């Protein structure tokens, strides 16, 4: 089985979908001749031509709006945001146009808006945000955030085939740091299903995106101390997999909710609500959140390091919770 990076896995997924379905088109800034700022669409223009790999003006609202228009006419557009930070300029078209059309009048809007998010590459306030919750709070959208190369390929393919608007968060720190065996076959990873990526018994760590790897690093370290962490990768944030989260909490009876996003209004708050409502009796300790602080993402490496959750912050929280 070939070894692919997280980035190449996404590219392979896109390529396969472009190959199998001529209604799939790509649009975005610098995605054609240049192949995208991170090269996710490299060589696609040569292969599929400029009617299907469309370089656009700098117009995030235009990109999403045009994707919606093309989708209403039967196409399956995949729109790239050069950085997910810039999706703010297309937010209105996503949350008011794309997300609400099906509810308002029943049409399908099969678009994917994808792009790199997340910190860890010294990108500063506008090339580092984890802004997934802007969309998780919008009924009508699906929100996907894979952590592995395998899932990234399977989920981008599922997202393209989905009849709803999907916001696909790629983590730029993982683009070239994650390498693993990825099947060349046409496989799908279903939207809405979490994965238990490490079995454990003492504390469940529920997380997603790059923080999955942080959780695994913490679990590795704590195993030597005899503390067993289970790691749940949500993979999809909307709709999220309640069952898998609750099953893990019921098994471990203690839970840490971990994300790179800031604290207030983050996914951890939503999960805490779910757990408090549905697994309250099974908790042997407080629900603990490990998140970034409520600030913009700072630039200088020292500041960024302080800002980001890391394995030490998780192990500290886990030891404290274990002792509760």
């Amino acid at each position, binding site marked *: 089985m070939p070894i692919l990076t997280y980035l190449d896995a996404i590219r392979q997924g896109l390529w396969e979908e472009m190959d199998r379905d001529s209604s799939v088109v790509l649009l975005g800034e610098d995605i054609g001749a240049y192949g995208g700022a991170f090269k996710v669409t490299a060589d696609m223009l040569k292969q599929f031509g400029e009617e299907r790999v469309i370089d656009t003006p700098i117009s995030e609202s235009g990109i999403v*709006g045009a994707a919606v*228009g093309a989708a*209403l006419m039967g196409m399956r557009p995949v729109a790239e945001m050069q950085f997910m930070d810039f999706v703010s300029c297309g937010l209105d078209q996503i949350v008011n*146009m794309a997300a609400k059309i*099906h509810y308002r009048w*029943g*049409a399908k809007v099969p678009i994917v808006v994808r792009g790199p998010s997340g910190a860890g590459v010294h990108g500063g306030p506008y090339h580092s945000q984890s802004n997934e919750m802007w969309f998780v709070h919008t009924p009508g959208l699906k929100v996907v955030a894979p952590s592995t190369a395998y899932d990234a390929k399977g989920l981008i393919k599922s997202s393209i085939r989905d009849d709803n608007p999907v916001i696909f968060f790629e983590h730029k720190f993982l683009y070239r740091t994650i390498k693993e065996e990825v099947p060349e076959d046409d496989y799908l990873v279903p939207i809405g299903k979490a994965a238990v990526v490490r079995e454990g018994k003492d504390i469940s760590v529920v997380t997603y995106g790059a923080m999955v790897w942080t959780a695994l690093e913490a679990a590795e370290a704590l195993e030597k101390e005899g503390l067993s962490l289970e790691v749940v990768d949500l993979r999809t944030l909307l709709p999220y997999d309640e069952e898998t989260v609750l099953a893990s909490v019921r098994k471990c009876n203690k839970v840490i909710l971990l994300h790179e996003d800031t604290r207030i209004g983050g996914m951890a708050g939503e999960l805490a609500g779910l757990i408090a409502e549905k697994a309250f009796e099974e908790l042997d300790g407080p629900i603990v959140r490990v998140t970034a602080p409520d600030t913009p993402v700072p630039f200088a490496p020292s500041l960024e390091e302080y800002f980001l959750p890391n394995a030490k912050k998780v192990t500290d929280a886990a030891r404290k919770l274990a002792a509760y």
Partner: protein
Amino acid sequence: MSTTQISARTLETPESDAAVLERMLYYLKLTREAETRIERVLYRQGRIVGGVYVGRGQEAIGVGSAIQLTEGDVVLPSHRDFSSFLIRGISLRDIFLNWMGRSSGATRGRDNTLVVADLKRGVIPYISHLGDTLPVACGVAMALKRRRNGKVALVHFGEGTTSRGDVHEAMNWAGVMKLAVIFICNNNGYAYSTPTNKQYAVENISVRGPAYGMPGETIDGNDVLAVHEAVGRAISRARQGDGPSFIECKSFRMTGHSAHDMAEYVPEALTQEWAKKDPIARFEKFLLDREKLTQQRIQEIDRTIRAEVDHAVDEAELVPMPEGSTAIEGVYCDRDCWWDKPMSMTRMSHPSQPKTDAPEV
């Protein structure tokens, strides 16, 4: 730009035979009658609730343009383009069903006013964030371009909307990609209470067309034949692959922004001046003067229209509002799609009662 006289240029073209002219008059009058009923009768009686926006005084823009479209073309009307929906073949009954929030309306009570979509007829409605449909029109035109069938997208918006960024993004995009989009600015003088001199700093907003690499033209929006002709030219251009056009139709909003708005901010003299240019009266006079229609025929049309509107309102009111619990259905399009199932005719949960006994106008 003519003011009170109607242009006769299109009469030289074969499409402007008596049947087309009569059709135009019919849709102008049907639009006026239906919107008057909504704004000045049904709303005041509490039989239509929520925001009520109509295009009184601007009917010629929707009629003159939509009548130029053929099967396969797509129109993205604004909230003041009632006639576009009718001309594309959507029934009055369906329009009233939606205005009244009924269960069998196009949105099953989820959205109001003219959100009556019909992709088969090429109608994509607006959202309240006016201007958002312009980039959507570009995407529609991109899809049409791939089909290579010479079809076009026609999108309407007000002059207030032109201040929004989406208008810039879409016009630039359409210019760069040479898309078959006809941008029609319904310049009705006021965006809610804001007059044009506080909205933009040029005399004619059509000067923006050339800035995006497309022709820009300002025409008399109260002259249905002038609209018909200008839009016809733009459509031919687009069908030939020569790209987008921008047409500014100058008109006037002969009512408030919405039914609750008495528009005291509009100087009376201005309203009086525009009343003299009423697009329907002008066109009717023109047809009579040229002996294209008789007074008797016009009276017949008026009677037919009143009966049609009466009938559509009666029919729509027979349909109940949706069951409250359906509010949670159909958020997503999944395998078992709620929208594919027929809407059950359930009891009316919130029967609308007349709240005033306002006289009919």
